């Protein structure tokens, strides 16, 4: 047996110290992703620091400098978060994104922090017998030219075409959430948009966090626009499947005209993709199918597709149209 030490940290500071000081150490949340990686040989840490029971706090409303926020402790299970009454009432996109993910059993076990930091599901990343730059920098990318159905169409690089798999992260990107972390230099507040990164020439790094930087909480502004928000996840199998593409959206209309819109996409890039160009195109305009299609096209003008990913453009367009028109209908109803 490969021996790895297991430590249940008694404080966040201790956890950070243990992991930051050891390049082969890792935080352990619910383990639904990391334990799979241990079995597959994708991750080979020699120290596991269990952070699931740290007193990160639950789900609480707080007053922030810019208005009320919902503070979510990093250890809150996905299922608890999805069931929280404030989440359900004021951040429906968040509840729906969570419930669209994984299975009931996995959602019970998975933590908020672990969900955001779960790694790509690219089949080559998970198969240690094939080259993968994310797993083994410099070895090559097998996904380009290989099984490509889930590959990125935005922001990919020659070294990596993987997508980020989290549904929760897409919803949080649309909601302008802030991730609170603790590192050796103390606490940091990272906007969701800056948490995950594009692969560029360092695909081994999923996020902008330093090794040993611990996610302690997520703060979600409780805005009015978020009350009318939803999540659309497109997949062949009706449940228990990662997104082919997904759309997190929030909409505030003035009659037919868009006062404010938030749009983030999953399944298209190495990070949740906040579609700011599309938001700009939609804001102040009358909401209709043609306008949404044009806005999506503007955002996708840089998209790069191949035989296996070409479908994502019409699928994402259709899913975005559907999501926004549904929200508009909800609003008028």
């Amino acid at each position, binding site marked *: 047996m490969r021996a790895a030490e297991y430590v249940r940290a008694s404080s966040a500071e201790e956890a950070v110290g243990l992991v930051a000081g050891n390049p082969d150490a890792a935080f352990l949340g619910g383990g639904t992703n990391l334990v799979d990686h241990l079995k597959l040989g994708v991750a080979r840490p020699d120290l596991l620091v269990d952070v699931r029971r740290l007193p990160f706090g639950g789900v609480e409303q707080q007053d922030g400098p810019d208005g009320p926020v919902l503070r979510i402790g990093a250890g809150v299970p996905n299922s608890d978060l999805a069931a929280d009454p404030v989440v359900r009432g004021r951040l429906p996109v968040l509840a729906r994104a969570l419930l669209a993910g994984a299975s009931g059993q996995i959602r019970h076990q998975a933590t908020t922090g672990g969900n955001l930091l779960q790694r790509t599901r690219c*089949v080559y990343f998970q198969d240690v017998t094939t080259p993968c730059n994310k797993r083994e920098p410099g070895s090559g990318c097998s996904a380009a030219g290989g099984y490509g159905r889930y590959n990125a169409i935005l922001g990919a690089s020659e070294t990596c075409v993987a997508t980020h798999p989290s549904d929760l992260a897409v919803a949080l990107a649309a909601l302008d959430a802030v991730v609170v972390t603790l590192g050796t230099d103390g606490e940091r507040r990272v906007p969701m948009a800056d948490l995950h990164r594009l692969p560029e020439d360092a695909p081994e790094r999923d996020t902008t966090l330093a090794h040993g930087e611990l996610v302690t909480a997520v703060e979600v502004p409780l805005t009015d626009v978020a009350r009318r928000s939803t999540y659309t996840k497109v997949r062949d199998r009706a449940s228990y499947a990662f997104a082919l593409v997904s759309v997190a959206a929030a909409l505030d209309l003035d009659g037919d005209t868009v006062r404010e819109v938030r749009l983030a996409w999953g399944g298209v890039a190495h990070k949740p993709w906040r579609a700011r160009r599309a938001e700009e195109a939609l804001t102040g305009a009358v909401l209709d199918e043609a306008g949404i299609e044009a806005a999506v096209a503007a955002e996708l003008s840089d998209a790069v597709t191949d035989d296996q990913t070409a479908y994502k453009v019409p699928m994402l367009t259709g899913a975005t149209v559907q999501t926004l028109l549904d929200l508009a209908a909800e609003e008028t109803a």
Partner: protein
Amino acid sequence: MTADPVQHTPTPIRVRSVGTRLERVDGLEKVTGRAGYAVEHGADDGFDGALVAWLVTSTVARGRVTSVDTAAAAAHDGVVAVLDHTSAPRLADTDDGELAILQDPQVHFRGQVVALVLAETAESAREAASLVEVSYDVEEHEAELTEEAATYRPDSVNPAFDTDSDTGDVDAALAEAAVVVDEEYRTPHEHNNPMEPHATTAVWRSDGDGEVLDLVDSTQAVHGVASTLAPMLGLEQDQVRVRAPYVGGGFGSKGQPHAHVVAAALAARHVSPRPVRLAVTRQQMFALTGYRTATISRMRLGADADGRLTAIEHRVFEQSSKVKEFAEQTAVPTRMLYAAPNRRTSHRLAMLDVAVPSWMRAPGEMPGVFAHEVAMDELAQACGLDPVELRLRNEPDVDPETGNPWNNRRLPECLHRGAERFGWAGRPAEARATLEGDWWVGTGMAAATYPAYRQGGNAARVTALDGGRYAVAIGAVDIGTGARTVLTQIAADALEVGTDAVDLEVGDTRLPSASVAGGSSGTASWGSTIVAAAQAFRERHGDDPGAGAEVLAEAADDPLGTDVAFHSFGAVFAEARVHRRTGEVRVPRLFGVYSVGRVVNPVTAHSQLVGGLVMGLSAALFEESWRDARFGHVVTQDLASYHVAAHADVRDVDAEWLEESDDAFSPMGARGIGEIGIVGTAAAVVNAAHHATGVRVRSLPVTADHFLGGR
């Protein structure tokens, strides 16, 4: 036990329990976790202190192993031995290229067994397996099926059908046909993926008269494992004991032993007398335990203006492994499904450096009827005919290929009854006619067929016990189908006692020989044999036998030796919805009506038929083993990337059957039900998706991208 079996011709039984809803006799053990599966056997069963074996598999698709560095693995904590082709015990017979592992340095496909580790725990074994350093001389490999590469003509196709057939003049008939459909249909590689992975516990014992290899295996055929392994190991068949008390599904992939069983036997020989446990991982199953080959079907149908078929041509291109040939009989059902004076079928294989394909639920019928029944839908459209009506117009009076009379071909009744129960009437003739909310809605149908088989090589023993009870023994295997339950019912009725007076024993080579749980033949083959034994027993020992009275018998009748065509039939109806903006496909309704002879137990039969429909639905919408030809292996090699239908996909799925009894086929009146549910189902879904959208998909699975113009 050594007495020769009595030859007895069974006569139809008077049914009492047969046909009723007896609950599974082993249900309690299963739901309470007391049922011991293949690697859940310890000291109580004679497998004390078992070591765990872990397979090391090749990471190249073709070449030679030049060295195996076992030092790090051997030094790992808990490791007892590391075996490779230089150190594994020798096999006496290496003819079977799939099974003759660890005998030479050749690598025939990526994922082949090249070494194995034996350790005290699974964790040690697994870690040490990752420390074994294998070096290769790599050779160029070929792993992609194309029509051009499929040029090899096998001598026969599975199990022993003619490779080609040619009747009349297909080309002339097509040239004259009023309507022609000429299209190509594709199905992907698919993996059986039973819930329980392939797994074996093995120990070599020496009793007084020599060595015995004792196995508990997750198999569909205990005697088949013994007869395959014995000569390879230089043993007599009775020196290999195989038990399979409980098996968590197989779908054909456990019909024959695969390389891991040999690995377990070799490993156990090496560490004898310690037992060895070997469970194949889910990922390894994608290379080691069989799969359905991808198929390319070139179909040409010719018909007159009324839709009467004048020509049927089905040319199949598929693949097998260079190391062992398996030719899926994809075009064989096309030879009998419909009438046409001119018919031609053929099978050509690409022989590739890939894992060995094998049986997967309805080999041949599943991909073949898919192609034929989508083509029939296209023909109905081209002729402006209702798809049900088209099938009715093409009913053959006799088996087209042999000229033999049908034994009760009831496809028309299945079609009529299915149409009525499903609510087929009133369906818009045009495709893309119904939009409900954001979903295009359509309905489709397909015919299903499966041959009725009864296998030879079966014997059953009936022994009188005290108190009016009977022991009934046959080495059949219940792979989760309910065989234990239905054989208890058959035995009870044949003996004319209650089911609670029967102690049925199955799943052990110490019991009388039995054929494989495959080809939908189990119930008919084993059941007929049990009836023969029970009737012979009554003849010999009467109604009030003394305890210990015993008969061992074989069934002497042979329906398949007569000039009658025995087949089961069915009709499948599906509703499909396709999202107009995202292309997502959902199947809210799926319904099949079957003619399968007498249903022995409505509960277990319903499970088999609905299970087949669900597996067909799963193949229609999701299943695809994506082989990366550059590497040579399937990269969607777990259940998170190889999707099978989940609960949310399985909505209103139901099956019914015609009340009937096929007394000419078996004394219970039963044929077989294990496979027909998967046949035609994917075609019905594809046809429904076409009716919903007007988009004709000719390859499986029918994923969302097909409806977005992006594929």
